[in-house]
């Protein structure tokens, strides 16, 4: 399909459109009333933040000061509704989530057309992307202990240390409340989905603590149309329940903290996550027994010291361990019988410091981590390998205030040094495998600008250069019929964005408050790593591609007549592949929609909240040559929530039209689903 066949896209002149928007906004003057600091809608590019953020601690990103186009999604927006992290994220502009199946299945996030392994995912600032490769599986996270989700498009704040070419998502977990509080949540829904969650939180004197636990399970046996692997033969199609897609998971988070006076604080955090996931095969074959067990243990000890002289300091040591055991001993999904265990251990620490000096804020961060990746063949062949990566990251940044703080500049510079090593080991054929090592370093400068052109109007822009270091898999080819490529270069990207945000109080037709935003982005990715295969079917990662991703994000929200809220966003993007491969050149990067938009209405009445959503996603290809077109999709979701004293009941339906879609070719997603959630809260003042 020729690129020129595509429908009109606003991306043809994104910068011009933005210029027109800015001009119109400025020329039209402010709305009838000026924005106020107490505005319940905190304006970012696509943000609806219902409640003020929790108390900021040293090292946290301050979204108010950051010029990044970020979104903070507070717990209140999802705690009584979904349990799916991806589902929360994908409703924001510029965010796409692809799933391989129903709840709990593999899912990955893309920001502004970046691939999932270009997007950094953090848990309380601790990096979750692993050197072994691939993006972070969102299906291995629970929302039960999440306080907020932070999305950083294009630019990764200096506070998060590591950065990559595709932006970042930070999952911020709950922190203990004042006094004592408890909450319990029960959930039941389609496909025998059932879950229980509880949170206890308290503070007594200098001590505080939190304990959160969740167990969630689902049969995931949703009905779909199975074409029997023969799409040209409707005669053998049949409606079937999805087979071997069930899962159960348990997530426990514990936190304990102590303050020492008003300036010092010590926190110990531990999270345990277990998931037992069965995996369906492509043809939904009865008798499939393939399974993936995942375990993650994460521990962090953090010490903050504020106002030490002019400095605020944070020290953190952390360890994370993720283990996956893939069991396809019957050879039902992969080629041949497999039973492997993959284990990643990551440990290290970082020091963060900030100082106000001369009316400006300066930050510095030093991060050192070691990561080991072990692969074991459990079928008794004796094959094992270990790869290590040591990473030193350092960054300095500043938040410079000018013009009475109406203009904020945020220059920053990161330096990262990677030492990679494939340890000598034993290969699948019981032969000694030669070790390899290499090292690489990168500088990543970035700068942001935030200018309050009027009380109601803010203009933001960012420019940065980012790097993605090749994974172990890409560099060493440590699994399957895949060759390593020691000459592989890191992916580099220059990301630029610019946009405006407007917000106001009161207006015509009962409008009480509102906000709107627009942003254009332009990312140029060089040395894009692609996988190439030879005639034998042996693969190798090569730097043969470039990509240019440009797009436009629009968002709005209005509050009308005290009881009605309308929000929406739209994303238009052209993720163009500029490959050396002729059949890929000029085509769209696969797995990204060209257009998507979502509108949502929410109404309150006497403790009841009724909401409805309508979302559309259009123009995506499954493959790099753009021969396999994904179906355009539209989805209607609706729900009713009732607050009565400390009890909340929520009924939510998704994909009400019962449409069948696939994010990955051949892996159906559930149709209509309905969930009922009950949550009880208990709070007691100290």
């Amino acid at each position, binding site marked *: 399909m020729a690129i020129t066949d595509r429908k009109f896209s606003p991306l043809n002149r994104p910068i011009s459109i933005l210029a027109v928007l800015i001009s119109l906004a400025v020329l039209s003057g402010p709305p009838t009333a000026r924005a106020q600091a107490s505005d319940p809608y905190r304006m970012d590019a696509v943000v609806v933040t219902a409640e003020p953020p929790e108390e900021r601690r040293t090292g946290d990103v301050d979204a108010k000061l950051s010029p990044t186009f970020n979104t903070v999604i507070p717990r209140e927006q999802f705690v009584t509704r979904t349990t799916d992290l991806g589902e929360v994220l994908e409703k924001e502009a510029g965010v796409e989530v692809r799933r391989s199946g129903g709840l709990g299945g593999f899912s990955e996030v893309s920001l502004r057309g970046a691939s999932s392994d270009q997007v950094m995912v953090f848990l309380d600032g601790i990096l979750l992307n692993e050197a072994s490769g691939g993006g972070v599986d969102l299906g291995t996270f629970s929302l039960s202990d999440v306080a907020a989700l932070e999305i950083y498009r294009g630019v990764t704040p200096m506070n998060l240390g590591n950065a990559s070419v595709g932006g970042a998502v930070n999952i911020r977990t709950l922190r203990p409340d004042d006094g004592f509080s408890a909450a319990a949540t029960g959930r039941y829904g389609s496909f025998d989905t059932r879950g229980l969650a509880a949170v206890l939180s308290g503070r007594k004197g200098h001590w505080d603590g939190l304990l959160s636990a969740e167990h969630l399970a689902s049969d995931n046996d949703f009905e779909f149309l199975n074409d029997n692997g023969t799409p040209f*033969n409707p005669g053998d199609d049949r409606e079937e329940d999805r087979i071997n897609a069930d899962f159960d998971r348990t997530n426990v988070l514990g936190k304990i903290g102590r303050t020492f006076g008003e300036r010092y604080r010590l926190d110990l955090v531990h999270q345990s996550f277990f998931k037992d996931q069965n995996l369906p*095969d492509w043809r939904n074959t009865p008798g499939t027994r393939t399974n993936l067990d995942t375990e993650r243990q994460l521990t962090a000890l953090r010490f903050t010291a504020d106002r030490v002289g002019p400095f605020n300091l944070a020290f953190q040591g952390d360890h994370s361990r993720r283990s996956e055991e893939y069991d396809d001993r*019957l050879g039902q999904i992969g080629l041949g019988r497999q039973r492997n265990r993959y284990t990643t251990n990551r440990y290290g620490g970082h020091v963060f410091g900030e100082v106000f000096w001369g009316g400006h804020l300066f930050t510095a961060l030093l991060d050192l981590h070691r990561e080991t990746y072990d692969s074991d063949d459990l079928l008794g062949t004796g094959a094992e390998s270990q790869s290590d990566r040591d990473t030193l990251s350092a960054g300095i940044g500043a938040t410079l205030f000018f013009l009475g703080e109406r203009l904020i500049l945020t220059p920053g510079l990161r330096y990262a040094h990677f030492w990679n090593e494939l340890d000598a080991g034993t290969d699948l054929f019981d032969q000694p495998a030669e070790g390899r090592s290499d090292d690489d370093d990168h500088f990543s400068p970035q700068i942001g600008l935030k200018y309050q052109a009027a009380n109601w109007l803010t203009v933001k822009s960012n420019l940065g250069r980012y790097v993605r270091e090749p994974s172990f898999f890409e560099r060493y080819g440590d699994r399957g019929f895949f060759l390593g490529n020691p000459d592989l270069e890191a992916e580099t990207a220059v990301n630029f964005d610019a946009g405006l945000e407007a917000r106001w109080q009161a207006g015509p037709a009962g409008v009480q408050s509102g906000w709107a935003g627009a942003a254009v982005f332009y990312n140029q990715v060089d040395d894009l790593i*692609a996988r190439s295969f030879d*005639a034998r079917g042996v693969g190798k990662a090569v730097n043969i591609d470039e990509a240019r991703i440009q797009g436009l994000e629009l968002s709005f929200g209005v509050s009308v007549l005290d009881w009605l809220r309308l929000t929406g966003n739209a994303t238009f993007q052209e993720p163009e592949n500029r490959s050396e491969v002729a059949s890929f050149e000029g085509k769209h990067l696969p797995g990204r929609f060209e257009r998507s938009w979502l509108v949502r209405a929410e109404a309150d009445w006497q403790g009841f909240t009724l909401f409805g959503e309508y979302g559309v996603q259009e123009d995506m290809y499954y493959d790099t040559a753009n021969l*396999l077109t994904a179906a355009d999709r539209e989805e209607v979701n609706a729900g009713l929530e009732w607050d009565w004293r400390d009890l909340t009941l929520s009924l939510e339906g998704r994909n009400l039209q019962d449409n069948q879609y696939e994010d990955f070719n051949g892996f159906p997603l559930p149709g209509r689903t309905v969930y009922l959630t009950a949550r009880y809260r208990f709070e007691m003042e100290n």
Partner: protein
Amino acid sequence: MSARSFRFASIAAILGFALVFGTVPAGAKTAVVATTAADFSSGAHATIAVEPENGQRAVQTDLAPTISDITVAAFGTSFYRIERFMADNVTKFEIDAPATPAWQYSTLDAGETVSGNPYGMVFVDENRALLLRFGKAAAWFVDPTPADEAGFKIGEVDLSPLADADGVPEMAGGATVGDRIFVILQRQDRDAGFIPGEAYVAVVDAAAGTLIDPGVTAAPGIPLPARNPQRIQYVPENDTIYIACNGPFVGFGPPELDYTGGIVTINPNTFETNLLVDDGDADNHPYGTISNLAVLSPEKGYFIGFNDFGDNNLYAFDPVTGAVTGPVAPSLQAKNLATLAAGPDGFLWVGNATDAQVALVDPATDTVVETVDTGLNPARIVFADDADSAPSPDEDGSGGGGSGCFLNALAR
């Protein structure tokens, strides 16, 4: 008009019609090329007219897009696209409507839980073919022209007596010689990294659908003096079967098995084997491994020497003496060469997966005389008869025997 005049007028009209509209030469063929994306994210097929018209070849690419793990086979005016691992289906197309499936059927029995991984079809005649299933012990006899799906599978032959310890013999290609089908078996060990074991050729009675014991060894098959057979071709002119054996992929098997491939010949009457071209050993392997072959005539054959990832060369060899020349075709050196086919036009058709082209090599000069873009990378080339040609089997190994191409080749 008298009867004689009418007869004359009728004959003249028919001849005139044929002169005006009958531009497709008798025996004209069209190449069908299975194509795959470089990253294996999709596949399709392409068609290329074998005979140019007014200096132009009719080419259609990116037809009926699908997954990448595909191959093609042809018989008469029909061709068959086979979707392999986990897809497990065959789709039939007619050459005059190459993007429109005539039918598509599964290659798994109801209740089969592991992919059969169909690898090719070997034709006996227009009503009977052997469907090779790489992931199973049994190959299917199928009717390529069934009335409905129930009539597609008409039998099966159990090749498990020739399987290695994992119970699956890994059938990878076949050729029809008279009333027998010779099937190459890679015998990979699925429990240890797919290391190819001692290779065999199974001999199947095409009519009875049974395994024939050639009586060479205790096992009911022909052991090969090289491992990992990839491609088989029968050359009727010298009544010889040629098999390209790759050996294990270097780096993906025990080092002591590296370079245990070569070109093997089999006398289909005596079952005698001969290592015609040896790929060498760990210290001396002048061609790399031998991953594919095509024999154009009893005097000229070609093979792909696989040196490294994306670094392959084309060599010529004497099908009788095994003498090797090359590398030949300089413009194809150090390319990712995916497949070879003996063209009905007498040229060697080479699938160049570096440049997504089919290159035509003139055997008289061993040089590329023409290239044709295929959209995605070519992975397999077969030849179907044009609609107004007499039916004939494809010359490709998966398509069984036949002799037409050599006559054409010699005629050039």
